[in-house]
């Protein structure tokens, strides 16, 4: 029970947000079983700024404790976990913790149905997206949901006995979790490094996206029931990466570490090159445990289906060309100046300027008419109780069409 104590101290020390909680959570992932994770979620709930409403959280926690093998109980826990990060305006206190706990939940869950789990997570993400688009609210950090999706892919691949697919999913999952956990202290020390989460090619965020897509598509190509939902999960991973572009890195202010612009760019480049190597190196026993070969992917990252990603080679060619064009040897300290010039204040990341979520979208008139018509019909339906029959004549054609569609569906299913 070090976990509640760690959270408690962490909340009281105002500076080191996430300093104690993260090791405790990692320990929970590695050691604990499902009930311990449920307890941890309960403690997390009490410590957050704005937790999930109790009428949802309490039954969900009870259900998950009573029926650890049920997929629905597992799914009902995800809103509890991600509520502070996704549904509140000011974000979570412990954003990384919720995704670590989600991964632990999926990993320790007993006999869940991976397809149902993936579909539920996709529905959750789409719900959040739809809410933020139609209500004109900027979304929370949706990238926190991605590790849970990747963990689902991992257990699905393991259930089907696809070692390579499981390995790809695990690589992506580990890299993503590391990025998310690191982004908490990095925001305080050196905020530029948060750009490592962006899905543009040399950065590790791109590796997560690429590996995630290939893990999902490996399932879609190899397993019978996953054809459609695998493609959908791949697209969802892409969509979440897009929202990473919008939400990550909107704070270009200086951190604690005293570094100039050249140092910042160098840090980003070094992080992009070294972070995947370090992550795969450190976690290579885990990777080896999932799939039986010792590989340390540095030059070429396999996608499990024959595709390979050779980012370092590409970066080498790119940097040689760039140096040739910049001709930094002509001037004194030219390289430093050139690197510093790469980071202009006009770097286009930032949510406030994109204006995508400032106003709800202007729906076309036909949609608005549909919505208003639906509302009127709903009111008419509620008026049924008071004994007034609604005007059914206008709905007759639609009713017949729905009936026809139902008959066709039944025929198609029985044929």
């Amino acid at each position: 029970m070090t976990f509640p104590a760690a959270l408690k101290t962490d909340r009281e020390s105002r500076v080191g947000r996430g300093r104690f909680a993260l090791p405790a959570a990692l320990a929970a992932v590695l050691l604990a079983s499902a009930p311990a994770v449920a307890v941890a979620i309960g403690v997390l709930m009490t410590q957050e700024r704005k937790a999930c409403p109790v009428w949802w959280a309490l039954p969900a926690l009870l259900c998950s404790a009573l029926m650890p093998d049920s997929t629905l109980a597992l799914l009902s826990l995800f809103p509890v976990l991600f509520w502070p990060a996704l549904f509140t305006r000011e974000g979570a206190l412990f954003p990384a913790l919720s995704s670590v706990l989600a991964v632990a939940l999926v990993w320790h869950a007993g006999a869940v149905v991976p397809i149902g789990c993936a579909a539920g997570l996709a529905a959750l993400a789409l719900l959040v997206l739809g809410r933020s688009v139609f209500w004109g609210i900027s979304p929370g950090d949706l990238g926190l949901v991605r590790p849970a999706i990747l963990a689902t892919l991992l257990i699905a691949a393991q259930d089907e006995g696809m070692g390579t697919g499981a390995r790809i999913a695990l690589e992506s999952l580990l890299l993503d979790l590391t990025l998310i956990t690191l982004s908490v202290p990095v925001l305080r020390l050196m905020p530029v490094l948060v750009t490592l989460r962006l899905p543009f090619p040399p950065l590790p965020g791109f590796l997560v996206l690429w590996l995630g897509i290939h893990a999902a598509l490996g399932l879609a190509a190899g397993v019978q029931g996953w054809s459609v939902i695998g493609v959908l999960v791949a697209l969802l991973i892409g969509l979440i990466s897009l929202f990473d572009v919008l939400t990550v890195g909107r704070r270009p202010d200086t951190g604690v570490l005293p570094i100039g612009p050249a140092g910042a760019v160098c840090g980003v480049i070094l992080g992009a090159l070294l972070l995947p190597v370090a992550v795969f190196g450190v976690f290579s026993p885990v990777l080896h445990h999932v799939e039986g070969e010792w590989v340390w992917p540095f030059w070429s990252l396999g996608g499990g289906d024959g595709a390979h990603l050779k980012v370092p080679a590409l970066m080498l060619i790119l940097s040689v060309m760039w140096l040739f064009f910049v001709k930094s040897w002509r001037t004194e300290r030219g390289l430093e100046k050139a690197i510093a010039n790469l980071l202009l204040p006009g770097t286009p990341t930032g949510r406030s300027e994109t204006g995508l979520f400032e106003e709800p979208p202007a729906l076309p008139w036909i949609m608005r008419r549909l919505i208003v018509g639906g509302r009127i019909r709903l009111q008419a339906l509620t008026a049924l109780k008071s004994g007034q029959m609604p005007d059914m004549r206008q709905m007759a054609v639609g009713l017949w069409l729905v009936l026809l569609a139902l008959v066709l569906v039944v025929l198609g299913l029985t044929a």
Partner: protein
Amino acid sequence: MMMTGLWAVAQTLFQLFILLVLAPVMAWALAELPRWINGEAICGLQRQMRRAIRFWGIVLKLPVAPRLALVLAIALLIFVVLPAVTTGGAFVSLANPLLIGLLLLAGRLMLGVPQQREEWRRVLPAVLVLCLTEALIALAAPGADGLGGLCAMLHIEPAPGLEGALGACALALAISCPPLREDDMIQRLDGEKSRQVREMSRNVAEVLNTAWLLLLADLAMPITVGLGGSDVTGWFVGLGGLLGRLALVVVVLIGLRLTAQERSERLTALFAGVALLLALAGRFAT
């Protein structure tokens, strides 16, 4: 072994040279042909060529501004990496569609100071369509390593469903994110005083546009890459294929522009859906 390596490097260099020559032609066609169809008087190709030659002279002699140099390096990297003429180039194995596409979009965002709102509305759907493309390739042709592997694989084992799906993806990309035009560049270089920098940025934008066109062409018709084997005649056949593909893409882009269908989210979504359906149908048919 030595000879094959040298032949691969030579092919890559030839490809780079040809694409660099084609870049001003493409820019001329994209800018002037719609006006020509409208019946206006247009200026000839010589002016554009002279501008390009002057630009490359400056680039080879003087240092370029770092951000501009990065964009230019990205465009040239894509010229080197994509399988344009044959699949035998030295760096073809690096050509992953998602990687290449995202690099190009990042370069596009780094050029000048883009209008945030407009630019995001173009780039974000394009990123999603690129993810879809990568997913469809992984789904319908497992075992293909990037675009080069896909082109080589389509000759051995034809996959009509995948080809149709990739064509629809290319069309969706062309609709959602058309190449940069003169007025785009004017907007981006709004605060820039120096005439020289403006001129350089325009030329870099032309090279970047050609790289985007090449990606679209490769996605739309991967079957025409490396049609005639890997010797010298095969190389010339591949060159013909490249010219044909690029001409087709230019015609489609001009058509989209003249009918005012570009940058429409609905059409993008429609063609992305068509691509998904085609690929799934092709997969279930086999």
